[in-house]
């Protein structure tokens, strides 16, 4: 570097630049040097206070209204569902609201025996009863609540009909309180992943008297979620909520399983800026980061291997392909581009010419190249289809479609929401297509809502997308591609595919179900309304003093058992 500045006539510039460089080096060197006062993380081990970077300010704390991941993490502390999960394997466990359950032979009736000593966090310590669950499910499914996650409860008999307003009488919906502590589900069809779904907060109960006290059952926004009003059934109680600042929860001594709860306090910081969060972590301000920017992975793995936590995640990164053709009034360029994309051979050429390994190598966090759509590790599923990457094949397909060596192929517009990582992937793929096939792609970034709007209105040729599983089952990845599915948004429509998904929902054996899903996925990988790129990993910095917080594929972390090891600092 110094050779560049030597003999530089711009002497006025040099001091500033030298200063920048010095500061940079000081920062680098001093990263490792310790400072005299103990960090917050160190002090936290004494008080068992868990400090979490939590991404963004939660939209709210009503589990039946909000949909975000930051909210999800908070719900795991202040609420509790029927069924717990094994922290590592995600297998259903009986350490939550229900102490046991039975499933009928045909898989259509679930009977839950609720725990009698589970209580709400209000002053009266109301027991959590089966009626509370019934009330909650009425609330989620009620059309007036307009819950975005109401579809999660569609496995309940008549749940969908009630939610869509076709059925007015909630007592017809398949959920009943047989007595105060016995809850029964009647299902629409056998749903092998039901227990896994129950760990999603849309299935978690709320305290009916609290809801009624502060508003109506179906009211989307009321002050009941304020710290002074909030009543939950989880291991912690909400004590403080400062907007854009922090949410504090404290251990409930009256929680039924309080002995297993080691933490006294959890503080959630909605740190949106990823770099700020990284700096906070490196100074010992928080125990765990919400995310990690791509450019820090290599660096972190090298410098802080013991704190860099990277694990497979149930999600897939892909490009949507617009199959709906151009809209009336579109210019000739768009018309040609959309027409080209309707040609399966062009889509296949695009899909086969992506060098996914190069992308994953670049991202460096152990992302897996996606040659199918369902991530590996999805419960009880094994992908049977695989895209065979081949530039040769791609070229001949393109020539077959009438664009030898990309001649005459229109420029495609690739949309992505503004994000450093998406930009990098788009730039790599852009170059791969250009070098490999001679296809030109123009990149368009948009802020989040504009991007969602673009995709929903089919104003794109190609669009970056991601799907994170709602529950651990292939269904969450495959049922979205049925004709006119809300999340389809590509115009993909395939009769056999629709039929397969329908059949899978009623399949009688796991083997049959697996086979149906496998066929569906191979149709998807043949028709290619989507070009899968890679399977996600979850990436966090996690302080080594945090114990009993094993990784899992849904990146969901209950707070029971977690503790901070004070010995780490000695």
């Amino acid at each position, binding site marked *: 570097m110094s050779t560049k500045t030597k003999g530089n006539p711009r002497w006025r510039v040099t001091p500033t630049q030298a200063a920048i460089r010095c500061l940079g080096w000081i920062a680098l060197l001093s990263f490792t040097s310790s400072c005299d006062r103990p960090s917050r993380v160190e002090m936290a081990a004494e008080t068992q206070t868990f400090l979490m970077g939590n991404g963004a300010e939660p939209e709210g704390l009503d589990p039946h209204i909000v949909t975000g991941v930051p909210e999800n993490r908070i719900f795991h502390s202040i609420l509790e569902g029927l069924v717990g999960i094994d922290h590592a394997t995600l297998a259903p466990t009986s350490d939550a609201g229900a102490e046991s359950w039975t499933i009928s032979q045909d898989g259509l009736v679930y009977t839950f025996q609720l725990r009698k000593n589970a209580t709400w966090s209000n002053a009266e310590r109301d027991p959590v009863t089966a009626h509370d669950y019934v009330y909650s499910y009425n609330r989620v499914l009620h059309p007036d609540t307009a819950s975005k996650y109401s579809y999660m409860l569609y496995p309940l008999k008549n749940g969908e009909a009630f939610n869509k307003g076709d059925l007015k009488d909630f007592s017809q919906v398949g959920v009943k309180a047989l007595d105060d502590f016995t809850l029964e589900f009647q299902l629409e069809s056998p749903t092998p992943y039901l227990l896994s779904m129950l760990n999603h907060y849309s299935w978690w109960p709320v305290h009916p008297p609290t809801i009624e006290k502060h508003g109506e059952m179906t009211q989307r926004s009321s002050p009941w979620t304020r710290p002074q009003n909030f009543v939950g059934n989880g291991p912690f109680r909400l004590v403080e909520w400062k907007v854009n600042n922090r949410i504090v929860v404290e251990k409930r001594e009256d929680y039924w399983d309080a002995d297993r709860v080691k933490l006294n306090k959890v503080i959630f910081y909605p740190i949106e800026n990823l770099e700020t969060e990284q700096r906070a972590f490196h100074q010992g301000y928080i125990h765990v980061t919400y995310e990690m920017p791509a450019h820090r992975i290599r660096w972190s793995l090298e410098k802080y291997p013991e704190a860099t936590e990277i694990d497979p995640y149930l999600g897939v990164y892909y490009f949507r392909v617009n199959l709906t053709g151009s809209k009336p009034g579109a210019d000739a360029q768009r018309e040609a581009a959309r027409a080209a994309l309707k040609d399966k051979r062009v889509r296949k050429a695009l899909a086969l010419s992506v060098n996914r390994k190069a992308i994953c190598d670049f991202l460096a966090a152990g992302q897996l190249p996606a040659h199918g759509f369902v991530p590996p590790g999805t419960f009880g599923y094994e992908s049977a289809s695989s895209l065979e990457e081949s530039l040769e094949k791609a070229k001949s397909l393109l020539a077959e479609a009438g664009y030898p060596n990309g001649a005459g192929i229109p420029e495609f517009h690739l949309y992505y929401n503004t994000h450093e990582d998406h930009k990098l992937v788009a730039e790599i793929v852009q170059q791969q297509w250009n070098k490999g096939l001679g296809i030109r792609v123009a990149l*368009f970034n948009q802020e989040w*809502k504009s991007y969602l709007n673009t995709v929903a209105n089919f104003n794109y040729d190609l669009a970056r997308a991601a799907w994170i599983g709602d529950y651990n089952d292939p269904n969450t990845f495959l049922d979205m591609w049925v004709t006119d599915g809300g999340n389809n948004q590509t115009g993909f429509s395939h009769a056999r595919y629709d039929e397969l998904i329908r059949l899978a929902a009623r399949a009688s054996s796991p083997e049959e179900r697996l086979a149906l899903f496998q066929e569906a996925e191979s149709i998807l990988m043949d028709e290619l309304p989507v070009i899968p790129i890679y399977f996600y990993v979850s990436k966090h910095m996690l302080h080594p003093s945090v114990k009993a917080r094993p990784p899992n594929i849904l990146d969901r972390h209950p707070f029971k058992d977690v503790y901070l090891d004070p010995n780490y600092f000695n």
Partner: protein
Amino acid sequence: MTDPVINPSGKLLLRPEDIEQGTSLWKDAWHRLRKNRMAVASLIILILITVLSIFGPMVMPYEYQDQNQGLGATPPLQAGAHLFGTDELGRDLLTRTLHGGRVSLGVGLIATLTALIIGVTYGAVSGYLGGRTDVVMMRIVDILYAIPFTIFVIVLMSVFDRDIKLLFLAIGAVEWLTMARIVRAQVLSLSKQEFVEAALSLGLHRVTIIFRYLIPNVLGPVIVYTTLTIPAVMLFESILSFLGLGVQAPMSSWGSLIKDGSEKMDVYPWLLLFPAMFFSATLFCLNFLGDGLRDALDPKSSKD
């Protein structure tokens, strides 16, 4: 050199000969500027940077978008002919910096010029006319100041196709406002001075007075503020590209390079260092050149 504004022969200023006198003002200014060594040095460096930005990318062995993933992010002078090193995708940073200069200098120049013309004219007219016109014009500025900019750009993007003209429209819409306020305040105080009254009593047209007498006399603050606007505009461009307006990946600009680099300053410091160096050098030169220009144009300074 006497001050042309209080020249007693002001009556003649409307005649064709004026133009000649006008040019001699500029000629004089140029003459004075040449004597300011700091300004001349700055001008030379600015020209150098501009030439480098325009022609540099043509002679570089790499293209700004050429990736070399095997290389990844390498520090300066460690691989191949990458003088400034490479970014994470293995793209040559020098090429990207020079290429970014085209965009940033272009945007900085055109957008600032737009803001300058609108702002100075608007401010001068408002300040000079005064009264109700001034009130209305200034309240319009107040409104424009407070328009929620992010949502404005989002709407702009959704209504029109992506276009570089939008960029100037968006930047121009914001940057001229302060300029207008500054000019107005100056003109307001100037218009009460004797020479304007004198010009008025000589029967000169208002437009003439504004462009002939008032604007030249507010050039000082205007130049200073302009040199402050250019960096603001260059950085502004990187914020707009977040909204999808402005340069699109994989193209680069100084603003976006600095913004990217700032996130990685402790991981890959050179990604910030080199673009920031070019950016800073340009700003320093612009400022010293601006100061020189201000001095040169200031008729009174010759008496020093």
